[in-house]
C-alpha cells in the first residue's frame, strides 16, 4: 500500500543493479522462474530461428540481386579505351564471368562455407580485406553520429515532451523534422559551403589532410577529428529527429502517471522529476531504437560518406556498385543485412530484459 512508485525505476544510472530490471518487477509480473525460463527459451528460439531464416534469405538474394541490376564490369575494368574481343574474353575468363550462372552460383555457395568471398573485380584484392580496412572508418563516423544523435535527441525529446505546446517543443520538433526531411546530399553541400568554404572552419573532403600533418598519434588524431566534425554532425542532424519524436511521445505518455504526481507532491523540483523519474521510464522505446540503430552503424552512411568522401563502407558500396564489383557487393550486402538482423535480434532480447511488461505478455 505504501509502495513508492518512484522507486520502481532505477534511481540513477549509477545503480548497476537497475539495469537487470529484476529488482523492480511490478506486481502481477512473475519473476523468471523455471516456467518463465522455458518460456524465455522458447521466445529466444523463435527469435533466433526467425533471424536465421532472414539471414539465409539474405545470403541467397545477395547472389541474384547484383546480377539483376545489370552493368558491365568488364568495361569498367578496361578503362576509357574500348577493348578488343580478345581483351574482353581474357578479362571475362579471369573474373569467371564466362561461366554459366549455375556454376557461378555453386561457386558462391561454396564460398559461403569456406568464408572465401573472393577478390574484387577492380583491384584484385580480397574483398574481406577491403571491408575490414574500411570498417573502422565507418564505425568512427556512424558511431560518433549515433552518440550525438541519441544524446541530443533524447535530451530535446524529453524536454519537449515535458512541456507540450511550449515554444521549445514546437520549435525543436519543427527543426528536427525539417532536418530529417532534408536530403542528405543537399544538407551536406550546404554544410560544406557554410562551414568549410565561407567560414573556413573544417575541411571539405576525406578523412586526412594531404599536407601539413606531422607524423605521430596526436597530430593524426587531431587531423582525423577535424575531418570528422562535419560528416558526423550532418549525419546526426539528419537522424536525431527519430530520438526526439520517440522520446517526446514516451515522456508524454509518462506525464500523467501517478508516480510523477507523488514525486511532485514530495516537493521534488520539476527538473529532477523529469530527469530522475520520467526519463528513465520513457527511455525504454529509445533503447530499442538505439539497439536497432546499432546495426545501422555498421552499414555506413552511404550518402554522408559519399558527399564528404569519407572512406567508409558506404562509400565502398557506392564505388562497388558503379562497376558493379559483384564479389564486393555480395559481401557488403550480407554484412549490412547480417548486422541489421543481429541488431534486431539483440533489440528484441534486451527489450525483454529491460521492460518487464513485455515478459509478462509474451
Amino acid at each position: 500500500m505504501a509502495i513508492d512508485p518512484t522507486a520502481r525505476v532505477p534511481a540513477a544510472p549509477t545503480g548497476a543493479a537497475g539495469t537487470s530490471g529484476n529488482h523492480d518487477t511490478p506486481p502481477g509480473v512473475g519473476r523468471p522462474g523455471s516456467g518463465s525460463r522455458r518460456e524465455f527459451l522458447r521466445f529466444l528460439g523463435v527469435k533466433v530461428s526467425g533471424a536465421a531464416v532472414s539471414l539465409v534469405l539474405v545470403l541467397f538474394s545477395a547472389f541474384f540481386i547484383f546480377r539483376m541490376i545489370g552493368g558491365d564490369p568488364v568495361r569498367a575494368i578496361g578503362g576509357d579505351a574500348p577493348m578488343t574481343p580478345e581483351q574482353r574474353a581474357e578479362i571475362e575468363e579471369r573474373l569467371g564471368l564466362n561461366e554459366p550462372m549455375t556454376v557461378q552460383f555453386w561457386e558462391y555457395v561454396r564460398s559461403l562455407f569456406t568464408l572465401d568471398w573472393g577478390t574484387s573485380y577492380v583491384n584484385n584484392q580480397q574483398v574481406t580485406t577491403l571491408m575490414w580496412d574500411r570498417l573502422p572508418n565507418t564505425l568512427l563516423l556512424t558511431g560518433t553520429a549515433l552518440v550525438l544523435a541519441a544524446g541530443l535527441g533524447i535530451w530535446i525529446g524529453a524536454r519537449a515532451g515535458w512541456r507540450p505546446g511550449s515554444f521549445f517543443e514546437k520549435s525543436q520538433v519543427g527543426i528536427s523534422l525539417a532536418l530529417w526531411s532534408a536530403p542528405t546530399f543537399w544538407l551536406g553541400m550546404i554544410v560544406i559551403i557554410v562551414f568549410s568554404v565561407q567560414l573556413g572552419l573544417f575541411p571539405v573532403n576525406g578523412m586526412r589532410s594531404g599536407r601539413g600533418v606531422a607524423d605521430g598519434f596526436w597530430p593524426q588524431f587531431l587531423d582525423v577529428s577535424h575531418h570528422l566534425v562535419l560528416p558526423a554532425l550532418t549525419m546526426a542532424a539528419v537522424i536525431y529527429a527519430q530520438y526526439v519524436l520517440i522520446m517526446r511521445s514516451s515522456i508524454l505518455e509518462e506525464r500523467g502517471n501517478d508516480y510523477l504526481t507523488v514525486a511532485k507532491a514530495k516537493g521534488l523540483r520539476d527538473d529532477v522529476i523529469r530527469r530522475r523519474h520520467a526519463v528513465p521510464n520513457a527511455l525504454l522505446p529509445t533503447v530499442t531504437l538505439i539497439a536497432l540503430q546499432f546495426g545501422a552503424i555498421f552499414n555506413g552512411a552511404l550518402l554522408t560518406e559519399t558527399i564528404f568522401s569519407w572512406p567508409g563502407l558506404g562509400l565502398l558500396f557506392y564505388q562497388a556498385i558503379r562497376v558493379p564489383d559483384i564479389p564486393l557487393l555480395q559481401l557488403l550486402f550480407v554484412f549490412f543485412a547480417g548486422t541489421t538482423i543481429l541488431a534486431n535480434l539483440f533489440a528484441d532480447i534486451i527489450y525483454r530484459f529491460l521492460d518487464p511488461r513485455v515478459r509478462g505478455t509474451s
Partner: protein
Amino acid sequence: MCSSTRLRGTRITMTTTPDMRRPFRLAAVTLALTLPASVLAAPVALADSDETHTLIVGTAGLDNIPHMNPLDSGWLIQGELNNLMYDPMIRWSQDDYSPSPGLVTEWDFSDDGLTWTYTMNPDATWSDGEPITAHDAKFTYDLLMENPVFNGRHGELVNNFTSVEATDDHTLVIEIEEPSALMAHLNGTSIMIMPEHVWGDIENPDEYHGEPGQPTSGAFELAEWREGEFVRLTAVEDYWAGPVAYDEFILQNFQTPEAMVQALQAGEVDLIGNLNPQQYAALEAADHVTTSTGPGRRLQSLNFNVGARTQDGEEIGDGHPALRDPAVRLAIHHVIDKEQLVQVAMDGHAIPGVSLVPPIFSDYYWEPGDEFIEVSADIGNQILDDAGYDERNDAGVRIDPESGEPLEFRLHYHSDRPTYAIVKDFIVDWVAELDIVLNDIAMDTTPLNEAGDAGNYDIEFGTWNPGPEATGTLVYHTCDRLPTEPEPTDLTFAFYCNEDYDALFEAQLAESDLEARSEILREMQALLYEETPSIQMYYENQLEAYNSERWTNFGTQPSAGGMIREQQGAFGYEAATPVSMDGGSGDDATDDDATDDDTPADDGEPAAASDDDGAGATPWIIAAVVIVVAAGVLLFVRRRRTADERE
C-alpha cells in the same frame, strides 16, 4: 514521518546534490569545450609543420583505376600518373604535340621504312641511379609482344615488329613487317619503358599492382596509394631531366565535382580540372583562385546507326533503315547549329566540331573551308526532297520511300549528363524543321552503351578523347572494326564502313613523310564530314582552376593557351612552382592574376601557405572565444534558474 521524508528528500535535492554534481558538470562542460576547441585549433597547429611543398590536384574517378601497372593502363587517370612517373621513348612536344625526344634523342629509318634505329639518351637514369639503356627498351617491347594482357593494349604498334635488338647500350633497332607511321613516335606516352633490372624478376608482370618505391624514369616515384582516396608521389631529387620545384604530388579523389570546387576554394586542393561552365564562372570570381581555359581534346558527337552489321554483311540491331542513306544524315547535319550549341552547352568554352581530329592537333586537323556544311533547314529539306523523301504521313512526317516507314528516330542521351539534356532539346527542335521526328530517350550510361554496342539505336550522344596520333581514332570507322560475329562491339563508331576510306587509312599508315601523311588524314576527315556517320558537335575547352596564392608556372599543352590537366605528358605539373619559391619569374597570366587577388605581401617572403594559415587562425580564435563565452552565459543562466527553483 512522510513529511519528514519529504523534507529530507527535498533538502538533499536542494543542497547536497547540486553541490556534489557541480564538479562533475564543470568537468563535463570543460571536456565538452576542450575537445571541440582542440579540434578547431588543429589546423593552426598543423600549419606550423607545413615545411614540404605538396601539389594537391583534385580529381574524380580515381576510384575507377584497378591498378597502377604502367603497361596495362586503360584509364585517363592512369595515363596521367604514368606521365608523372615514367618517360616515354618519344614525347609529344609541349608546343604542338609533334614527336620530340624523350628517352630517345634521335631516330632514323631505312629507305624501305622497315628498319628503325633509335638512339637513347646516355644521361637518362632510373630513380635508383641505374642507367636507362636500350636493353630496358628491348625488354619492354618483348614483354608487350609476348604477354597477352599487355599485347591487348599495345598490339597495334608491336604486332608489326619482326625483331627488336639492342645493338649497344644506347642503340635500339626495330625491324617491322609493314611500313608504319607509328614508328615515328612509338605511340608516345601510351607506352612507358620499364627497368629490366627490376621487372625482369617479376614473375607475372601483368599482375603488377603498383608498388611504392619502385625505380622510375620520370620526375616522381609512387609513395602511397590509398585506393579510392588518393595517390601520393614523391619527387625524384636527381631526376635526370631536371627535378621539379616541390616535394610531393597528391592526386586526391572526390566523389562529386561540387565538393571538389569547394575544396579548391577552401584551399584544400591546389588544382582542379574538368569543370563545367557554371563552376568555372563561379571560380572566376573567387579570391586566390586563377582560372585557366584552353582548347581541349574531348569532343561531343551525335552518332548515327548507319546500318549495324557484321563484316560479312549480316544485319544486327534495330536501327532505322533510312539512316543508312548519307542524304538523310547530311540533311540532319545541315540543321545542327554548332555555334549555338557551343553557347548553350558550354557558355562559349568550346570550338564548333568538324571531324574526329580536334584543332589542337594542328598537324592533322582539317579545316572544311569551301566544304563547310552550312546551317540551313532549306538546304536540308532540299537534300531530302531530292533524295526521294518527299512523301509525308498524316502527321506531316517524311516517309522513307524504300521501307515505307516515317522518318521517326530514337535519340539516346545520357541521363547523368545534364548538358546533353539541354542540347537534345535544341536538336529535336532543329530536326523537326526537316519534318523528321526525334524521340529523345534518357538512359543511364551502361544501358546506353549496351544498346549502342548491339546496334539497338538510331542516333545517340557520345564523347571521345582523341589522342595526338590520329590513327588511334580514325581506325574506328574502318570496315575491319565491324564485328566478325553478330555480337555487340564497342570497337566501331556508328558501324561505318567505306572501302575508299579504308584505302586512305592504309595509305596514311604506310606513309612516313609527315606532310604527305597529313594530306591523306585530312582527306579522310573530309570524307567523314560529308558522309556524316557522326556529327561532331563541339570540342570542349578544358576548364581548370588553381590556387594562385600557392602555385604558379603551370605548363600548358599546347604551350600557347593550352590545358594543364589531361596532357599528353606531364608538362603542366612538372613546371609548377610554389609561389614561395617563384621569385617573380612566373608566367605572365598567373602573375597578373595572382597580384590582383593577392593580399599584400609584407616583405617579399611569399610563403603563401603560412600567410594564409596565419590569417586563417583568427576565425578559429574568435570561434573558440565565442564558444567559451556562450558556455559561460549558459551556465550562469542555468545557475540563476536553479536558484529560482530553490527558492
